[in-house]
């Protein structure tokens, strides 16, 4: 199994979720994060003093999938999350050694 972790723009979350459920995935977990990257925050003025915002709000989507779905999942996320503008984010894929569904104790592919 693999954990696909994607950092995306917050307003793309709904599209990403829909594209994943379209693939038949049943679950995912979302975290609110802040990202630092090539995309620079605007220079803002607060009470007459300029400052640049270095961290921008992003959303992290984590979804565990069986290995042979990885390809299509990554593709789906990339398509759904892309705006073509800087700051669209990243997808990382990692190994999961084991998965358990807490409710039933089912493991691995059955747990997802």
């Amino acid at each position, binding site marked *: 199994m693999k954990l696909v972790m994607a950092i995306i723009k*917050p*307003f793309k*979350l*709904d599209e990403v979720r829909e594209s994943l459920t379209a693939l038949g995935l049943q679950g995912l977990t*979302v975290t*609110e994060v802040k990202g630092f990257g090539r995309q620079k925050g*605007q220079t*803002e*003025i*607060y009470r007459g003093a300029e400052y640049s915002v270095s961290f921008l*709000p*992003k*959303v992290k989507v984590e979804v565990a999938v069986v290995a042979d779905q990885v390809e299509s999942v990554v593709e789906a996320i990339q398509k759904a999350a892309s705006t073509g503008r800087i700051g669209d984010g990243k997808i990382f894929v990692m190994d999961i050694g084991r998965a358990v569904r807490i409710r039933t104790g089912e493991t691995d592919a059955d747990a997802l």
Partner: protein
Amino acid sequence: MKRYALLTLGLGAAALALIDPALAQQATDAAAEAADAAPAVDAAVDAVAAGVPLETQFIFNTLSFFIHGALVMWMAAGFAMLESGLVRSKNTATICLKNIALYAVAGIMYYIIGYDLMYQGVDGGYIGTFSLFWSGDDTSFLEGAFESGSYAATSDWYFQMVFVATAASIVSGTVAERTKAWSFMLFTVILTSFIYPITGSWQWGGGWLSEMGFSDFAGSTLVHSVGGWAALAGAIVVGARKGKFNADGSINPMPGSNLPLATLGTFILWLGWFGFNGGSQLALGSAADAIAIANIYANTNMAAAGGVVAAMIVCQLFYGKIDLTMALNGAIAGLVSITAAPDSPTIGQAILIGGVGGILVVFAVPLIDKLKIDDVVGAISAHLVCGIWGTLAVSLTYQTEYETEAGETIARTMGEQFAVQATGVVSIGAFTLIASFIVWFVIKAIFGVRPAEEDEELGLDKVELGLEAYPEFGQGSQRV
């Protein structure tokens, strides 16, 4: 009656004259001087007999205006908090800004042009005087020439000025979260300089509606419906918030971000409304005024109470849960409903009038959603719908009088009054709606009314103000 005393004195002097002419002359002089003094004594005693000396009346009347006006000013804070609580956090700072700015602008425009347009020389007509920079004149009062009912000129101006801000506040809530700040301010300028004063002149300025026998004590129509119509026009011209209505016609609720603030705002409005309705008695110089204001306070309160309870019960029955935001809207609905006649109903009637308002608002909110009109805070439902209801309901508890050709003064029947009330509702509604549409369209054409789609997504706070309302509490969770 003092005159009899003087008469007697004169007679005494006459008696003296029979005895000693010189003495009599002195006595007569004294009596003459006493007679000179008589008018003042007279007036004083008259005043005391009439209960309240004229200058005391003047102070009471003025006091009522400034204290009640301050309470109405406080409603601006109420709208600000209610709206801050009901928008999403990414637009909270902007709505705060709009609310404080509109209150400021409304006052300035009303000073520059609005007041005279509304109150000077309307004379049964359709508009007052176009003259710049209002100024009051209290010289006669400073010289001691009081009449019953007189008050400091500025106290009245102040009281009327805070009312115009209320109308503008209503608009800001409806078109929140998607309207450019400066475009909104521009609309506020026109609303408070022209639209509100013109319709206001028809009734409170002594224009044609008031001659016709229309009655709107504190402004269910003149303030709340006017605000509501202007808001409706705005909502239509500006369009719904991105994402509010799904392609399939279903509605995508966008929950308010801070409900305790919305609750606070409602309580502030409730308190301020005592000033709004109570002050509209326009006098506190007699026991009758004091009694009227006491009744107004009680009725205002109980109509709001009726609105809350009715809205809660209807929510429970129809939705199985009690929506706090509906209970809050219920309070406002009750308040708006009683505003057209807060002095005439009994307490029981006030509860019912407010209660009907509370029911109306619960059904109006989803209805307006269904019309694909996006009213962020439910202002159209609370202020326009209940403003209409309250204005029509006047006919149930109060009928104006008119003079027949024979010179008799008789009261209208309920039906006649209803017809007059309806005339007021329709005429003011039509004028305000059309005028507002035109103004919103012109602003849209020239300056635009909406930020770019991505800017709306980001939130107006970031885009127009360059800051966040709650920068430390995380962002983005509203999207999940």
